[in-house]
């Protein structure tokens, strides 16, 4: 969807600068919905500990962080009956104990959160993720696919045959992860099933930067969740869908997602 915005800006220019969409911050009164529990949990095939974060919704335009939820009972279980009660390390941040085994591809994990007399449950399976064969980089001038001059990193991988694989890519630039919307990338194999694929970062990096590309396997449900999240990052655009709530996998009325992923990394230094 990003690209259509670029197109629209061109459209803007083309019509002799008469089309020029502008933005302005306005006052708008929003109601305050009753606050709801939000669960953000992740089990991966990388060494633990794993975290489950609990918080509450907040009034949208109120300039304050969302409240953390302390004192909840948080239990994670795998399909071999390894059960772990998570400890609250920081307010709202619950951590598995060292005895909980490392996540494994093919295993199914479930989550139970008990808070203020209500139970919330979710489960998910860790699906395999393709190997990232290699990374390369090249200097590009600013252009349609390249927002600025700089080094763009390309990834090479074999997409495994069989429809239904979904991925999320995360980028660590000099060890730092940015949640900017232009660095949020998810993909599925609908049009590339079983092919040897390449993927180029949608942003440039600088000389001497280290870039680590993290590929995660997503369940089909998690892919839908992230796809909805991407849509939310820019609602009400010209060609965008009107906003809708994200589809959670948590039952019991909480928001958020309990994610189970396999991860492969590969890094490169620009020199």
């Amino acid at each position, binding site marked *: 969807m990003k690209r259509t915005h670029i197109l629209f800006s061109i459209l803007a220019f*083309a*019509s002799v600068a008469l089309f020029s969409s502008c933005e302005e911050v306005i*006052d708008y009164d929003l109601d305050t919905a009753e606050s709801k529990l939000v669960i953000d949990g992740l089990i991966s095939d990388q060494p633990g500990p794993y975290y489950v974060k609990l*918080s509450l919704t907040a009034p949208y335009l109120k300039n304050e962080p969302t409240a953390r939820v302390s004192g909840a009972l948080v239990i994670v279980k795998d399909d071999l009956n390894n059960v772990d009660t998570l400890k609250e390390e920081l307010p709202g941040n619950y951590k598995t104990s060292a005895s909980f085994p490392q996540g494994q591809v093919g295993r199914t994990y479930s989550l139970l959160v008990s808070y203020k007399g209500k139970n919330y449950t979710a489960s998910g399976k860790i699906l395999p993720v393709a190997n990232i064969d290699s990374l390369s980089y090249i200097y590009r001038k600013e252009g*349609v696919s390249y927002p600025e001059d700089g080094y763009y990193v390309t990834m090479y991988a074999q997409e495994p045959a069989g429809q239904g694989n979904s991925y999320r890519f995360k980028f660590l630039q000099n060890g730092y992860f940015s949640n900017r919307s232009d660095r*949020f990338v998810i993909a599925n194999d609908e049009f590339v099933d079983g092919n040897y694929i390449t993927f180029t970062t949608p942003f440039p990096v600088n000389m001497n930067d280290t870039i680590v590309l993290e590929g995660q396997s997503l369940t089909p449900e998690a892919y*839908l969740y992230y796809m909805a999240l991407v849509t939310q990052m820019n609602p*009400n655009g010209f060609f965008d869908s*009107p906003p809708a709530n994200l589809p959670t996998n948590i039952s019991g009325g909480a928001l958020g997602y309990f994610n189970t992923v396999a991860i492969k990394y590969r890094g490169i230094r620009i020199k």
Partner: protein
Amino acid sequence: MKQLLLSILFAAISFSSLAQQKYTISGRVRDQKNGEELIGVSVLVKELNTGTVTNGYGFFSITLPQGKYTVILSYVGFENQTIEVDLSKDVVLKPELKESKIELKEVVVKSDKPNANVESTRMSVVQVDVQTLKKMPALMGEVDILRGLQFMPGVQTGGEGSTGFYVRGGNVDQNLILLDEAIVYNPSHLFGFFSVFNSDAIKDVELYKGGIPAQYGGRLSSVLDVRMKDGNSKRFSASGGLGVISSRATVEGPLVKDKGSFIISARRTYGDLFLKLSPDEEVNKSRLYFYDFNAKLNYTINDNNRIFVSGYFGRDVLGFDKSFSQDWGNATGTLRWNHIFNKRLFSNLTFVTSRYDYGLEAEPEESQGFEWRSDMADQTIKSDFTYYLNPKNTLRFGAGITWHSIFPGEAGPNNPNSYINKQSLPVSNSLEHYYYVSNETKVNTRLTLDYGLRLSVFHNQASAWVYQYGPNNLGYKPDLRDSTYYGSGSIYNTYTGIEPRLSMKYSLNESSSVKASYNRTYQYMHLISNTNSPSPTDIYINSSPNVKPQYADQVAAGYFRNFQNNTLELSTEVYYKKMYNQVDYIDNAYLFLYKHIESQILAGTGTSYGFELMAKKKTNKIDTWISYTLSKTDRKIDGINDNKAYPVRYDHRHNFSAVFNYEKSKKWTLSANFIYITGGAFSAPDARYEFDGYVVPYMTTRNNYRMPAYHRLDMSATLHPKKKSETAKYESYWVFSLYNVYARKNAYSIVFRQREGYTDQYQAVKTYLFTFIPSVSWNFKF
């Protein structure tokens, strides 16, 4: 079924005074200047105070007892013509009306029957006068008939600058948009900023909002009947214009004098020519333009046979450097044969073809390069008859058949190095046929009825896979239960619609009447769009075993009154409309080239009701009207919004507009229009939460908030430089327009987001498209 219908119909017709010898006066009424046939000319028989109006081909027929009669032809903007007829045998008239000269200080509208508003059985009809429209202020100087409609009651706009329109709570796909009887699927250029109708090629525009006549069908809410000009049959002439973003040219003339004529009209934007001048390589390699091409030929074989061929072709092309391009367009073709069987039976045999296609291409030189194409096409054969039974009864009947084919799309690699796999969705074929009959009967001098029935039948045609879904569909994750394959050519699903239509008028006196109408309409196509604006990628799907046809019932009633010698017209109407099987997409629906698209939508009911008022004042100097609509539209669909009713996005409670045209002198005409619309509904977050470092909005209900009110004032001045001489053929005029005079920043959308660079601050941000836009266009004619 049909037998029964016909017998009911004929039973209702009174065969009075059969004994007396009767003869028919018939003919075609034309414009003296260019030979264009005039639609809707009032034909009055003075002695009997009865009459008729000319049809879409300028034809009329009236059957009367033997005698001497005075026939008066009157038409707005033309001088009345009186013809004495000695009716002792059938008489064919070929009257040509003369345009009234505004310079003559007479009231233009001065005839015995200028009160069509009050007299006609028709209600809920909006007429757009192209000549008036040309003087009105236009966005970037582009005269646009669809935008002109938005100043009429009962019509809601699709947003700032948009030519999309919503009629009495119906969605955009529920408008039957006909260009010379061919369906236009996507009536917009440049994402809705301009319509595909080149005003230079258009003769007549009518919008039916209710009381839809039985000959129209296939769409739920309205009929927009656009007819192209036939071309000047008297002499060659050319016209055209230069505007800020496009230029137009039209040539027309006789093929054989008074026997046939042609018109060719073209329009193209030239924004892309400016792009080439840009020093920025990215910009100067871009492409952006649209063009339109209209052509029409007609030939009169003899008094009883006439042939018309017309076509439209238009295209939008948008390309950004080499890496991305999009193009889309409509093509329509119409072949018509008017045949007059006898003085009382007029017929029309029509072949229509219509096609819309869309294409997209990305990165033709890269390994992720791909292209996408989709199209939809219709072929129609239909036959329509009008039988002028007697002065009291006019029968209309006909039948037609349409083959629809929708190819949702194919995406695949566009170069040998691309790693994209080819994916294609199957073509969806269907067949729609219909039969109708209606009768307009003058029960007495006060009461006129127009009643009819339409029967429509729809078939899905294989080959096709039919899927069965359970209730738990999610975005991109259907609850698939079963699938069945139907082999080539077979009909695997049929729907039938019985559509009664009724309009009535009761005259209270010479200058006022009350009218009422009821219609049921069926529609076997559904637009699936979850974007905020009409987009070329919007998807149409056929009704199918999973998607029931939509249908609607509408009742309307109105009071019509003329004042001040018919120079002031007042129309008020109320309507109530219930729409069934209205589709909306589920939350987070996945619609892109998706074979389970039917699992992403749910159906329910829609309700709309409202009050509409229009007051129109027309004298030789002033042409002005105000329009007001009070309405409410919502939907209720099980599985969406917790099964509760929610307003549609185009639910604007109040909609007021005023249009003012003043001919100050022969040289200057001044125009202004003003519009005020209360905000439509949109979804906004009642709360936010944090997930994985991202801020996520949370909504309690769909379309739970309102946009701020929209209002705008536009002004224009038309300059007619003095002609070289009174008889000079060459004339030109300039139109200077100001759009949004007081530069209001009308909200196009409102988004809620984290303030950039701050993690603990949140904002409501309004996007607006236009403020103040001046433009100028120059137009010529010779």
